[in-house]
């Protein structure tokens, strides 16, 4: 097994590894931030749906030779609108509408990608290949991270109140639909940025697992955003190290590290971990 020292040595010598590390850290941070709002709004399934629904957008953009972000965002927003339309114009519940729309989009994307590209590239889109990050990928990832930070900083109180108490937000006149669809657009941008690090299949894990971990550690939204993005970044660094040294696919390696951090938190988190709950039970017995 390659040691950490050797990994650091390689990091100093290989540009591709430096780019991969920077991209993975940025994706870890942005998915941690946006993921916090996704889980607090009870939209984990929606995050999964949007991430899968961008696939046909990626394919169409590739075929037309336009920026992947444009194609992916377009299809991500269409999927979010369609899900809302089906749920509000039928007896079907939201999760059913999500299941129908995202599976249809994913199937369409799969066929389009297969027609447009070789199976190797499809594999990379589905599972990520962070070691092939280009300079332009790095730049676009940085731009998306900046957009995410500005979006959350500028609209923090609107995101907070629509996540906590949407009816109250509506009652004072906030247009909650704009906040919702704004978040969906940001989510699609994050998804596309994460294509290369963890891939479409596993991006939902990066959205949910670090945020869920942070949720166990804190009772304040601001701290949750920091802890979540920190967990995302650490999982990305350690996952990339494992990917490089063990020759594992980058996406699964990063996601597994995030899951292990969650598992540890699930046991030892001071307020909501298993140990804390056992402590409460013992106090009650005494």
């Amino acid at each position, binding site marked *: 097994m390659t040691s950490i020292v050797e990994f650091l040595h390689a990091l100093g010598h290989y540009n591709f590894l430096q780019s991969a590390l920077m991209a993975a850290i940025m994706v870890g941070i942005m998915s941690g931030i946006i993921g916090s709002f996704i889980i*607090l709004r*009870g939209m984990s399934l929606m995050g999964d749906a949007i991430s899968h629904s961008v696939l046909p957008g990626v394919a169409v953009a590739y075929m037309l030779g336009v920026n992947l972000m444009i194609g992916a965002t377009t299809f991500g927003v269409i999927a979010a609108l369609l899900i809302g339309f089906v749920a509000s114009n039928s007896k079907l519940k939201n999760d059913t509408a999500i299941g129908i729309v995202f599976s249809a989009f994913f199937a369409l994307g799969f066929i389009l990608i297969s027609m447009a590209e070789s199976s190797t590239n499809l594999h990379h889109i589905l599972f990520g290949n962070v070691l092939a990050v280009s300079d332009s990928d790095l730049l676009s990832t940085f731009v998306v991270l900046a957009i995410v930070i500005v979006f959350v900083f*500028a*609209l*923090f*109180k*609107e995101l*907070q*109140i629509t*996540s*906590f*108490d949407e*009816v*109250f*937000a*509506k*009652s*004072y*006149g*906030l247009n909650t639909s704009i906040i919702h669809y704004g978040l969906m657009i940001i989510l699609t941008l994050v998804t596309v940025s994460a294509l290369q690090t963890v891939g479409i299949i596993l991006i939902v894990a990066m959205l949910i697992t670090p945020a869920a971990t942070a*949720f166990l550690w*804190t*009772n*304040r*939204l601001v*701290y*949750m955003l920091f802890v979540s993005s920190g967990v995302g970044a650490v999982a990305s660094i350690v996952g990339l190290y494992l990917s490089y040294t063990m020759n594992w696919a980058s996406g699964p390696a990063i996601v597994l590290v995030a899951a292990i951090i969650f598992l540890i938190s699930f046991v030892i988190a001071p307020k909501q971990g298993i140990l804390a709950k056992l402590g409460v039970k013992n106090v009650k017995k005494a």
Partner: protein
Amino acid sequence: MLQINDLTVAYSNVPVFTDLSVNFSPGKITGIIGPNGAGKSTLIKGTLGLVRRSGNATLNGTAINRVRQKIAYVEQRAALDLTFPISVFEVVLTGTYGKLGLFKSPGRKEKELATDALKQVNLSEFKNRQIGELSGGQLQRVFVARAIVQQADVVILDEPFVGIDMKSEEEIMNVLRGWRDAGKTIIVVHHDLNKVAAYFDELLIMNHGVIDHGPVATVYTQENMARAFSADLSAVLFNKRAGA
């Protein structure tokens, strides 16, 4: 004055009420009572435009949509996620968001308002608690404190006394009476009929429409209650033998 004109609300094409018109006067606490499913909460949501409706609602002649910051709404607590990472103080501070508008964060003035509001409902010592750590009564007082910082002309509360302790109920009533004395319009959806005479100045009695509306002494009668609840409640509410 809060005026509701020809309001119609339907769920799945089944009307809850049609062409309902009613006025709420300032300087009064008005209770809305009626059986379950009578449309009490729906009237509130229709007035605020939170559900699809026809008709209109105005405050002093201006459409509600244009004066939303003048109305505070304390909704039923059941729908909220009490594990949300937010403190008592932060919840109260959200009451300032409407007037702040987009992109502005609460400053010193807003934080002072929230601190004062928590003092008014005797919850200052709980300000840093996560909201899930409070009792039902304390939680309801937090939402009343949020309504205080909204500094609204009209305050609407939907079943504020459900599942709360007597101390909290009394403290909330004290706040409502203070608002009433300051000339605000207070509307309370209520289910405990035994406290109607003690709590309210006026009553709106509903059952898929208005049964009666006016001062408690005038409209809180055996006949009206029998019409609203389709039952003779005289023994329970008016201390008389049924049918006497």
